[in-house]
Structure formats: structure tokens, C-alpha cells
């Protein structure tokens, strides 16, 4: 229902803005009036973008209230010793995300991008997050590593970072899971 409203309301408003601009183009008013109309259409378009953003935030607030929200992010530093293929996340033994990375996504992470891989809800209390990283290590060898983190979920939202970096001294990748305070 929520997706349907969003999927139809936003394009509908955008189409309306477009139709309004088209209709205005057809009547061809005098130049000063036209520039005023253009400004009005631009304003309407801006409002549509703002409305879309507000809808998105409202959706997240409703589905993932701050009191139970947990978000997991993936970042990558250098990546000389590890070619990321997929990340699987399990929380309290239950798989919540299994993400396959394309070449373009890997490139984005290597350029400093941070990906929100999962957003969900968690009750207050102790939980266990396990992340499995699959890919290729040095010499194109298949590589799979797991990292575990005990999370104490309190009242506020929790943000967890899965960080892949290079341990140069050991010529191996390093996987760090940590909670952002």
C-alpha cells in the first residue's frame, strides 16, 4: 500500500507539473508572463522533489522508528588484498541480508563510497551480528571470512559499520565490525 502510494503519487505529481508546463507552452502567453510561469513551474518541480524527500523520510520514520532502528553500512579502504563478491549479514542467527556486488559497486566502494546494506528493527537488549565477507584474496584465491559483533541495543538508533581494509604488514585483508557511537 505504502509502495503503491509512493509509486503513483510522485510520478503523478511530476506528470502534473510537466503537463502544466506543456499546457502553458501551448497557450504561449506574452514574454514577461511566460517567465513568471516558468518560475512557477520551477517552483512546483522543487516542491515535488521536496515532497518526495519528505515522503521518503516519513516512510523511514514510520517503518524504522529511532527507538528500534539499526542500520548496517559497508565501506572499503584500498582493497588491494581483497576483491569483494558478497556480504551476508546474520542477526541472532537469522539471515537479514545477502548482497552481491557488481564491478561498478565495488568501484564505488573503493572510491570512498559507503553503502547502507541493511536497515531494520531490533528490540532493546543484547544481540549478535555476524557478517560473512566472500570474495577473492591475493593470487585470485577464494576467500571467506566472518566477523562477529555483540550489540547492546538501547533506546536510540544503532549504526554498525562493516569495514574492509588492507593489513599491509600481513599482506591480508582485514574485516572490522564496529558500532558508531
Amino acid at each position, binding site marked *: 500500500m505504502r509502495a503503491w502510494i509512493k509509486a503513483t*503519487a510522485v*510520478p503523478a505529481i511530476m506528470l502534473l507539473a510537466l503537463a502544466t508546463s506543456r499546457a502553458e507552452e501551448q497557450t504561449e502567453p506574452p514574454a514577461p508572463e511566460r517567465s513568471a510561469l516558468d518560475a512557477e513551474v520551477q517552483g512546483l518541480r522543487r516542491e515535488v522533489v521536496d515532497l518526495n524527500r519528505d515522503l521518503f523520510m516519513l516512510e523511514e520514520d514510520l517503518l524504522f522508528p529511532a527507538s528500534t532502528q539499526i542500520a548496517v553500512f559497508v565501506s572499503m579502504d584500498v582493497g588491494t588484498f581483497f576483491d569483494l563478491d558478497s556480504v551476508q549479514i546474520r542477526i541472532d542467527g537469522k539471515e537479514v541480508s545477502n548482497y*552481491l*556486488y557488481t564491478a561498478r559497486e565495488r568501484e564505488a566502494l573503493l572510491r570512498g563510497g559507503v553503502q547502507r546494506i541493511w536497515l531494520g528493527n531490533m528490540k532493546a537488549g543484547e544481540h549478535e551480528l555476524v557478517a560473512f565477507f566472500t570474495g577473492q584474496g591475493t593470487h585470485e584465491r577464494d576467500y571467506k571470512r566472518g566477523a562477529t559483533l555483540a550489540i547492546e541495543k538501547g533506546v536510540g538508533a544503532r549504526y554498525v559499520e562493516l569495514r574492509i581494509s588492507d593489513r599491509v604488514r600481513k599482506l591480508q585483508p582485514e574485516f572490522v565490525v564496529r558500532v558508531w557511537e
Partner: protein
Amino acid sequence: MNSTQDLADDDRRVGRFVLAITILIVLAAPVMASTAPDFALRSVAGANYRLSEHRGEVVALIFWASWCGDCRRELERFERLRATYAPAGLVVLSVSLDEEPAHAATIAAAAGIDYPVLLDAGKKVSRVYEADRLPLILLIDRNGVIRARYDALDESEEHGLLVRLRDLIDE
């Protein structure tokens, strides 16, 4: 008098706005409903592919399996189409439902195809796309909307497919 007229004008404007929104929602709903569901799958060659990364291109998506008699003909047909229309923005992705990647690789090699063969052994993607008959061919436009759906093609359908494909490329 003027203020009464202004109020009536406002009412008419609001009425028109509500009517326009209602019409647009009704018109937009089926278009949004046929948006191709996104997926990421591993290919026989090892690379991963995500459908949404091909927004802006026309995508031909073929569901097939090594045990399906008509599928090989379609794989070959789309290799010819890819060779012709790839410079114009056609991308062909095939999704094999084989449980053994080797079976898919053998048929793909025999058919001489040069586009990705994605593996959906778990049938997660094919279930979403309701691929209950093989082959299943989908044409997806540059905005990610499914615009045509075909089974195995006969001669007359092939002509229709070509016309449709050219139209999508020209859009």
C-alpha cells in the same frame, strides 16, 4: 462580489487539480506495476550483474534452461540481435534455471553467445518474473519498464519482436 468570484475560481481550480491527480494516479498505476523487479545474479563467468545498472539501455531478458528444446534457438537469435543492436543500446541478459552451472555453460558455448549467462539455480528471480514456461523473453525499456513478453517465437512473432525492439531503441 469579487471575493465571491475569487472563491468560486479557487474551488474550480482545486476541483481541476484533484481530478487531474486522480486521473494521473489511475494512469500511472499500471505503468508502475510493470516495472521490472531488480535482481543481482552471478554469471557463469563469475562476474555479478544487477539489472538496475542497465537503466538507460534497452534490455532483453531471456529465461532458459539446458533441458528446454526451444531455448537454444532463442539464445542464438538474441546473439544475432545483440551483434546488430548493441551499438544502439541493446543489452541482452540471459538467466539460466539450471541447477548445474556446467550445463548452462555447455549450452551457452555451443550456441556461441557472447552475452552474460546468469545463474538462478535457487529460482528466486524466475519465480518473481513468473517464468513458468521456458523460454521466457522480456523486453525492458530504458526506464526499466517491461514492455513485451514472449514465449518461443514463430516467424510472425519474430517480426513483431523486431518492430517492438526497434521502437524501444528509438524511444
